[in-house]
């Protein structure tokens, strides 16, 4: 059922320590990579057709190949560990159970793009995880997997752990770069893209934790082998988190393309007693919800969920029971985006606040029929008009909820005596 590439040794409590990791074959991939031409490593990554696991799904190998070969500037690798999309907790599991695979993945990436300085930007609230990574990084330094001349070669690699201060927007790659530079976390205009002008205006690769952590497997087994798994458009395996009233919530590694209901019913054990499936948010709070009928058709892949008007996103599945309050759920989501908008672009700054205030009024039972048109109007006005995707991420669930649960909204704005 599960397809364990990344999670193969997660049952082993020693795996998170260097000894255990080495015993399970760890750090073989970086040694192999260091024996290859950097371009050949990029080629393996390209062949794997691995799409970035941070949510946007941009091909990782392609991203690496954009880094200029000839440049006078230093190059940087930044690992995005600012996992804060509501419903998402897969990167945290990797850090808990397999921190060295992340470090090894970073080293592979650094070698591939010939960077000597890498950063892990970790979410501020991940205090325990920061300590775990700190310890793992120290172990790697102590045993020559990081620092001067890694694995006995002439290749130097410094890895710096940087803690965020609790802003969702710093998970947006250019907001993260601003924050890493010590500025207020506000996304940058693109172009220039980070591959040409990223951290400190130098070429920079930014990859998600899961993307980097699976790289050792790809290097050891070959990109082509990885691409055989999953579907042609969504290759490989995926860590999928599931929360809500299911019997076994958690993180599971599956081959891409698994039917959503198979995942929910078999891996997650189905709904807990007395609860019926009402809706599923398939990929973190910014992805529009699916109805039970849509869930029957859905597969866990980029293309299947796109086709259903939602998205794979971070694959943080939120299961909602049929008795959940649509209005309350949407109010909570709207509040999140209103709170997390960085406030630089007008449509997002004002739109997220307007959505939340309107939802709050409806939730308080003071909504009016025209509020529903207003919610659509605000969402439409926010989309595609800002520097980063936060405005879109706030508008999509709003539009999705309105589309999926029109009766609930209608009922919420109808005066009680008229119901």
């Amino acid at each position, binding site marked *: 059922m599960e397809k364990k590439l990344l999670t193969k040794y997660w049952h082993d409590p020693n795996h998170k320590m260097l000894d255990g990791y080495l015993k399970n074959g760890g750090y073989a991939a970086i040694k192999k990579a260091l024996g290859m031409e950097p371009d050949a490593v990029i080629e393996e990554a390209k062949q794997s057709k691995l799409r970035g696991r941070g949510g946007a799904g941009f091909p990782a190998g392609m991203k690496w190949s954009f880094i200029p070969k000839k440049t006078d500037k230093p190059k940087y690798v930044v690992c995005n560990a600012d996992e804060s999309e509501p419903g998402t907790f897969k990167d945290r599991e990797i850090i808990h159970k397999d921190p060295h695979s992340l470090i090894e993945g970073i080293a592979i990436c650094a070698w591939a793009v010939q960077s000597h300085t890498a950063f892990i930007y970790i979410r501020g609230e991940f205090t325990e995880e920061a300590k775990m990574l700190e310890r793992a990084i120290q172990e790697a330094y102590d045993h020559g997997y990081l620092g001067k001349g890694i694995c006995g070669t002439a290749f130097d690699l410094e890895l710096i752990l940087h803690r965020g201060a609790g802003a969702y927007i710093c998970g947006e790659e250019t907001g993260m770069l601003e924050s890493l530079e010590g500025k207020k976390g506000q996304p940058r205009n693109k172009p220039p893209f980070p591959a040409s002008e990223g951290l400190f205006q130098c070429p920079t690769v930014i990859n998600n934790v899961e993307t980097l952590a699976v790289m050792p497997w790809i290097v050891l087994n070959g990109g082509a082998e990885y691409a055989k798994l999953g579907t042609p458009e969504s290759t490989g395996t995926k860590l999928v988190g599931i929360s809500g009233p299911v019997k076994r919530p958690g993180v599971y590694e599956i081959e891409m393309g698994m039917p959503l209901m198979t995942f929910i019913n078999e891996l997650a054990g189905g709904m807990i007693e007395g609860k019926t499936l009402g809706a599923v948010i398939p990929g973190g709070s910014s992805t529009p919800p699916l109805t039970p009928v849509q869930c029957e058709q859905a597969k866990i892949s980029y293309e299947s969920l796109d086709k259903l008007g939602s998205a794979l996103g971070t694959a943080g599945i939120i299961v909602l029971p049929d008795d959940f309050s649509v209005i309350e759920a949407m109010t909570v989501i709207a509040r999140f985006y209103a709170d997390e908008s*960085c406030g*630089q672009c007008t449509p997002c700054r004002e739109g997220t606040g307007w959505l939340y205030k309107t939802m709050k009024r409806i939730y308080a039972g003071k909504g009016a029929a025209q509020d529903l048109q207003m919610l659509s109007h605000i969402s439409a006005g926010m989309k595609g008009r800002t520097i980063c995707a936060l405005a879109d991420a706030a508008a999509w669930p709003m539009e999705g909820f309105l589309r999926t649960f029109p009766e609930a909204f209608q009922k919420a704005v109808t005066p009680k005596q008229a119901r």
Partner: protein
Amino acid sequence: MAQETVKITINGKEVVAPKGTLIIEAAAQAGVEIPHYCYHPHLSRPAVCRMCLVDVEGQRKLQPSCSTPVQPGQVIRTDSPKVQEAVREVLEFTLINHPLDCPVCDQAGECGLQNNYQDYGLYNTKFTLPKVHKAKVQKIGPTLTLDAERCILCSRCVRFTDEITKTHEMGIMQRGDHAEIQAVKEVNNPYSTNLADICPVGALTQNDFRFKVRVWYLKHQQSICPGCARGCNIVVDHYRGEAQRMRPRNNNAVNQSWMCDDGRLLYKAIRNEDRLNAPMLRKDGKRVAVTPSVAFSEALRLLEKHAKHTATQGSASVSNEDAFALARLLKMMQAPVASSLRESPVGWEDDALLRRADRTPNRNGVSAFSGTEEFAVRLKTATLALVIQEDALPERSLYPQLAGVIYVGTHDCPTARSADVVLPMAMWAEYEGSFTNFQGRVQRFLSVVSAPEGVVPLWQLASRWSEAFGGKRYASAAEVFRAMATEHPLFAKMTFDGLGEIGLCAPSADQSKEA
């Protein structure tokens, strides 16, 4: 050097623009105005207000024209329904938390929000929820008042203090719709008032101008700041015959879009209580007011009598035309053109931005018509002293051989108090003329308000006196300029009207040889 150009189409019209030009700038050159708030030609471009979105063929999303450079063959629309809808909706977002206090807001009439909502017809708000409230009427420094609630977070002021003055007083705190502009320390830099100019709304207003005049009553005139050798290009706003405010005017070669706080207040000197408004003669040790023609004739009598025994103190504050006409008079009188210029008052140094240690506006121009002989040296033997503007002879008793002192100036001073004839002259805002700045750029200033009755500029006095010595009387500043241009290489090939809005630089010696 031919600049590479790019051909693009804006709203169906073909436009040629230099490579690297931003779409918003190329459009402006083609006469297409794109609404914007955060964009400013002399600041970085964060593209955050999202008002300047345009449709670029082949791009899925609308592009911010303030940060997108033109590309060959680009087809751009600023008037498509998609763009119009986007601008209208972005404007709507901008307005939802903005207080509707236009009637009591001093920015009303020159507010970017008002102008645009009238253009886009957003008269009725759809926003029926409580607005976000922020701090109002904050005195953030000696020159400025901040109303954070009116701020639309365009960040121009933050960028100005970060990039231009590098004093970093302004910052945006918090995030989302609670993001709030704040002064993190007292805003007290020499260029602070520019913040009020660049603020597109009524968030930052200038203490000196707040609630003085409703801006729609103001009339505007192009001028040059007389505060230092930079010669910042300015606009003087006036109302009922009085100057009310000075604002910088764009001239990339001189002051970009800025001016300093000291310069900005110089209009006050026009109505200063020390201002000399009427001619005076000294009779029995007392000064008595006389008519302009009496004072003029008395001065002329002295000039004719002492002629070549006159010592003259010139001024670097008068116009080129003034200095030229005075030099011509002195030559006719066979008096030495001894108008050595006084040193500028100390206390100011050149700074990295605009201000020059030389606080006179026209040393470069006046020097062209000045002799070498020191006034102080000449005074020892002269029998008549002609002092222009400067307080150069505060102690007349040191020179007992002086039979007469004529003072021509704008404000009272010890020299004026000991003079036999005091002739007030018009100030820079009261006549038209030109200054030559420290770069050698000849810049024109126009008459803003009228001078006190009977008060004329120096060139008129000098030209009328010179009639008595067989000279021609000039009818206008343009005519003086014409004569000056034929006689002096610094003004060769220039005409007064040809100076236009941003002035002209004299061709360097080498270039004139080539020509």
